[in-house]
C-alpha cells in the first residue's frame, strides 16, 4: 500500500479565540491523521470582533493553525490505488499499474499496451477531488501490435467507465468528452489537475505517425466524471 503525503495546507485547522489553548493541546497530542478539523465559521468574523487590550480575561486571539513539527507528525494518508479500468462499450478491460515520469519529463507508460498506467503523483480515482489520469499505448513494441486503447477514439459521450480499486471497490464514471488534439497544443496542466472536481482522464495516441520520431501526432483524451445516481 502506498501512502501519499498529505500536506498540512490541506488541513484547515483554524483555532479561534478562547479555544486556542485547549486545541493547542489536542493538536500537539494527536500527531497523526485523526487530529481535529475545526473550520473557522467565517474567516472574516474575527475581523469584526472587538480588539481588546491584552487583558488576560478578555483578550481575543486570532485564528492560527498550530501543529507539531515532529517528523512523526507528518501526515500521510493511504492512497487507494486503481488496479483496473473498463470501458464496456468498446470492449476494453485492462489492468492498471502506478507509473511516474520518464527521464525526459513525459509521463511513464507501461510497455505492454494491454496495461494502463495510472499517474501516481496525481489523484486516484478513489479520491474525492482531482483528476486521475490513466494512459496506455495505442500500440507498442512490447506488445508487437495494437492495444485495447486503440478503440478509445470510438468512445461516445455518455458511455460508462468503471475503475476497480485496490480495496476491491469500484468507481463508476460517465464519459463527458472525447477529443483528439495535436500533441503540441495540449495544455497538460489542465489535464493533470490535482485539485478541483473529481475526474477521470484516459489517454492514448492517435493521428498520424512520424516514423523518424517514432511518435504519433495527436493524443486521444477521454474525460469522464463520476456517474450520478
Amino acid at each position, binding site marked *: 500500500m502506498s501512502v*501519499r*503525503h498529505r*500536506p*498540512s*495546507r490541506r488541513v484547515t485547522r483554524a483555532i479561534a479565540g478562547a479555544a*486556542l*489553548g485547549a486545541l*493547542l493541546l489536542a493538536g*500537539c497530542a494527536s500527531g497523526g491523521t485523526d487530529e481535529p478539523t475545526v473550520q473557522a465559521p467565517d*474567516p*472574516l468574523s*474575527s*475581523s469584526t*470582533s472587538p*480588539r481588546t487590550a*491584552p487583558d488576560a480575561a478578555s483578550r481575543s*486571539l*486570532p*485564528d*492560527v*493553525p*498550530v*501543529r*507539531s*513539527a*515532529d*517528523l512523526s507528525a*507528518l501526515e500521510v494518508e493511504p*492512497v487507494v490505488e486503481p488496479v483496473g479500468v473498463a470501458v464496456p462499450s468498446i470492449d476494453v478491460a485492462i489492468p492498471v499499474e*502506478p507509473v511516474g*515520469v*520518464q527521464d525526459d*519529463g*513525459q509521463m511513464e*507508460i507501461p*510497455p505492454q499496451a494491454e496495461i494502463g498506467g495510472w499517474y*501516481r*503523483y496525481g489523484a486516484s480515482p478513489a479520491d474525492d477531488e482531482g483528476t486521475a489520469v490513466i*494512459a496506455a499505448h*495505442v*500500440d*507498442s*513494441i512490447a506488445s*508487437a501490435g*495494437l492495444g485495447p*486503447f486503440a478503440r478509445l477514439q470510438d468512445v461516445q459521450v455518455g458511455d460508462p467507465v468503471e475503475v476497480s480499486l485496490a480495496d476491491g471497490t469500484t468507481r463508476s464514471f460517465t464519459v463527458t468528452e472525447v477529443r483528439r488534439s495535436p500533441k503540441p497544443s*495540449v495544455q*497538460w496542466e489542465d489535464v493533470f489537475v*490535482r485539485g478541483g472536481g473529481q475526474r477521470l482522464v484516459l*489517454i*492514448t*495516441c*492517435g*493521428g498520424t*505517425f512520424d*516514423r523518424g520520431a*517514432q*511518435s*504519433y501526432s495527436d*493524443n486521444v483524451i477521454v474525460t469522464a466524471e463520476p456517474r450520478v445516481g
Partner: protein
Amino acid sequence: MRKRLIAGTAAGFALALSGAVPAVADSHEAQLSVLHGVPGLTVDVYVNGDLTLDDFEPGDLAGPLALPAGTYTVAITAADAADDSAPAIGPVDLPLEAGKNYTAVAHLDAEGNPTAALFTNDISNTAAGEGRLTVRHTAAAPAVDILAGGAPVLTDVVNGQEGVLNLPAGTVSAAVALADTTEPAIGPADVTVAEGVNTIVYAWGSAADGNLDLAIQTIDGLHSAPAGVPSGELGLAAQQSSTPWVVGAALLAAAGVAFAVRRQTVSVKND
C-alpha cells in the same frame, strides 16, 4: 532596540493579526509560518503589540497565514508575561513581500542564545516527478554536514544557513553530522520528499544539551504536469492508411525488439 531582518539569514520572528487577514491568498499577500525551535521555553508571541500565539510550545509550527504585505513587529515573551514589554526575543521587524512565502523560526544561535530568523521558502515549481528538500541549521551547534543516504549532500552549514535540493520524489534517509565528523548527531531518519512539495527540515535544539532534533515543515502545490503522454510506438493506429509492407515491417521490427527492450525499473518509492 530593533533589528531589521534580512530574509534567510538574520533574526526575526513573526505571526500576525489574522483578524485582518483574508482566508485566500492573493498577489498582495505573503504567506507566513512560525516554528518554535527553542527547547524548554513555552512562549507567547505578540505581533504589533497584540497577543497572537498563546503558550506556543517548542517543536510546534504555526501557520501558514496569509498576511497583507508589510512589516510586522514581533516580540516573544515568556508564556506568563502580562504583555510584550519584556520580550525574551525581539522585538524585531519582519518585512514581508507580496507573493513570497516565509518561515520565521525562534531558535538557538550557535552559542545557545535564543534568537530568531526569517527564512524565505522556495515555492518555485518543481519538475514533474520531483520534490524539493530544504535543510536549515537552527541548532546550538557548530557547522554541520547534511547526509542523505549516508553521503554528504551539503557541507559546512552553519547556524542560520540553509541548503536546497531538488530531487526525485521518494524517501530520503537524512542525517546531520557535526562538520568533519562522520557519526550522525541527528538521525538518520527517513524523510518523505513528496512530489511537488517543498519539505523543509530544521535541525534544532542544542548539541551541548543533547537535545538536537529535527522539525519538519511542508509546502505543497508546487508540482508541474508531465511534458507529454507518449502512448504509441508503432504507427499501427495511424490515420493514414499504411501500405501492407510498412505494417509488416513494423510488426517484424516489433517482434525483434520486444526481446531486447526491458522496462526500466524506477527505484523511487511511491509517495
